[in-house]
């Protein structure tokens, strides 16, 4: 019979990677969404496209760009060589998988949070300012809480997307058993080697988790629309 031990490592790794990628989306993506939703600035259109690109490009392409950024022969390698004399890269580590998942799921977090923030009546922000609260307090105490459901929905979608990331991950983190084989990669491995039992178990877990997250995100965004 199938045992959990067969999928324990990929499952744990995937959760860890997806969670950290989601934290990244919360820390960087939500403020970015706030700026995009509430400000006009030079180069906004370009910033917007840059954030959203991974949503429409094949993940392999995003992965290739990431290689250029964090690979030993990429920007990071060049920078570390200039500083320390040795070129370092973080490719083929689980951290690289986090970065890949982050880049791929960021557009989902940003676009969902952005529309939730833009949907908050501007009068509330204006009222907050005239009541003597600065921009940051207005964002944290008024607009943020009023957009909270949409922001959380975006993060749930980002988590679901990060959990299943394949294309970019395989480019930057490889597919190293016991090190970087996340669930999505493990399904590929299992199917490739004819291990249908593990593949089916992983697929079942996946479907369940994704459906649950999607359901949660839908509920949250529907409540926002109301």
């Amino acid at each position, binding site marked *: 019979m199938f045992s959990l031990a067969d999928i324990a490592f990929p499952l744990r790794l995937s959760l860890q990677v997806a969670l950290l990628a989601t934290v990244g989306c919360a820390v960087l993506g939500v403020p970015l969404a706030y700026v995009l939703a509430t400000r006009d600035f030079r180069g906004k259109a370009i910033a917007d496209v840059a954030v959203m690109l991974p949503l429409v490009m094949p993940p392999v392409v995003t992965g290739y760009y990431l290689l250029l950024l964090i690979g030993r022969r990429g920007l990071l390698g060049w920078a570390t060589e200039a500083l320390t004399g040795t070129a370092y890269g973080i490719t083929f580590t689980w951290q690289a998988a986090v970065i890949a998942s982050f880049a791929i799921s960021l557009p989902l977090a940003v676009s969902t949070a952005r529309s939730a923030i833009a949907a908050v009546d501007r*009068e509330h922000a204006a009222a907050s300012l*005239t009541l003597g609260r600065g*921009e940051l307090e207005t964002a944290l105490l008024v607009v943020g809480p009023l957009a909270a459901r949409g922001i959380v929905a975006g993060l749930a979608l980002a988590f679901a997307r990060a959990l299943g990331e394949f294309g970019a991950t395989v480019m930057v983190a490889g597919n190293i058993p016991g090190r970087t084989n996340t669930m999505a990669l493990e399904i590929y491995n299992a199917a490739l080697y004819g291990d249908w039992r593990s593949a089916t178990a992983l697929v079942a877990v996946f479907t369940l988790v994704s459906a649950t997250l999607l359901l949660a995100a839908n509920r949250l965004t529907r409540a926002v629309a109301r």
Partner: protein
Amino acid sequence: MSALSLHLTARLPGFTLETGWAVPGGFTVLFGYSGAGKSLTLSAIAGTLRPDSGRIVLSGRTLFDSVAGVWTPPQQRRIGYVPQNAQLFPHMTVRRNLEFALKNVSRTERADRVAELLDRFRIIDLAEKRPHALSGGQRQRAVLARALAADPAALLLDEPLSALDLPVRVEMRELLREVQRDLGVPMVMVTHDLYEACALADTLVVYSGTGAVQVGRPHELLGDPATPEIRRLLHAVELPESALARPARLHIVADRKESVA
């Protein structure tokens, strides 16, 4: 000296606001055609709209001066602003809404101040309620209380009574008058209701469609409108004589006039 003086130009998509006037303190009412820029003028005073050029001075404090490069952001103006359809923050209780305006105030002082406001605006029973549980009039009283919480240098009101039922409206007029008298804070209110304008205003600022304004006491303006446009505006309805004699018969007159309207 004027409590509030301004002249400004604001170019917006499809509309350019160009206006200028000065008023003493007390109760100022902006009256005139829709789309003449009365609301935008209030936004500029509050600082939620930045004009392209001009100057705004409130009680000796320059809030905006395009020549000198002065721009005080809204959060530093200490102006109570109640825009049209103003709302409370829906995720906070009435009490929290009022407390929100009291930053950098000690806990006991804040509690005292909030209690005083809740009492003055007769919303003490509603303190722990969320805005959605309040009636229109209750909400408007809470919004006013919030705008006054931080002891503002001026109070701006954009058609604060237009969404209310008649009895509530009459009551709110009294309240506004009373607040102005007791607190002495300069108030500027936009209204489309000529009766309301004349009943409340110490100073009436009439916006004509062309951007020109006429400033004066209500009876002066009614007796001597500066342009044919302003004459049309002020004499569109026959006002009862008593509308200009404040405030004793306010109730009665209000009922009669508006039941006809």
